[in-house]
């Protein structure tokens, strides 16, 4: 089995990409939230539970530049999500055998 990095760039409020990813992603894989996907990382949002529910099985990351762009630096993230920059994004792609974008 390859180690998978799932990429989510869609708002969970508008699109079903994260729902489907969470349904299909296997325990041990990672999820990077970027672009409008970062809204899924906010602990105050109504989507937080869906992410928290799989926190033990999946490793979640969020792209810091997209968080800052959207003015969300003052909003708390869901516990356990790591913030990475573009360099960290590259590292994640390198460390995982396959990257899957949920477009």
């Amino acid at each position, binding site marked *: 089995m390859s180690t998978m990095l799932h990429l989510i*760039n*869609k*708002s969970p*409020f*508008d699109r079903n990409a994260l729902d489907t990813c969470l349904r299909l992603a296997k325990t041990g894989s990672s999820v990077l939230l970027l*672009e*409008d996907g970062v*809204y899924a990382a*906010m*602990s*105050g*949002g*109504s989507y937080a539970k869906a992410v928290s529910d799989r926190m033990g099985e999946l490793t979640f990351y969020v792209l*810091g*530049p*997209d968080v*800052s*762009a*959207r*003015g*969300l*630096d*003052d*909003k708390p993230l869901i516990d356990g999500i790591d913030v990475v*920059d*573009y360099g960290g994004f590259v590292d994640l792609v390198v460390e995982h055998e396959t990257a899957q974008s949920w477009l």
Partner: protein
Amino acid sequence: MEPWEEDGPEVVKRFMYVNRRAPYGTIYALECLEVVLIAAAFDQDVSVVFVDDGVCQLKKDQDTTAIGMKNFSNTYRALDDYDVEKIYVEKESLEARGLTEEDLIIPVEVLAADQLGDIMAQQDVVISS
């Protein structure tokens, strides 16, 4: 005095611009704002609505340095200078995203879905993007 009671025979229509998308992920927020600023010059009755992810367009403290895109959020402040004063934000959309009125870059009127629906139902032209 309401706009349509002003002098002259010209018809004044109620134009509503509806924003349902987050900023930066797509260009719709920016290009809709460009329309609204032009529309303001036409002496019509203009209102701007933010619903669903559209409410995120108004979040304070946007900093786009690291994504390399233009930060256009300060332009919303110009709406007031252009006499665009009817700015409505849906309460349910804010709450679902963990946001409050204090998070927004400009003063707005926060309305529950039911009230916002009433205002939408009164429009002559609705432009969404």
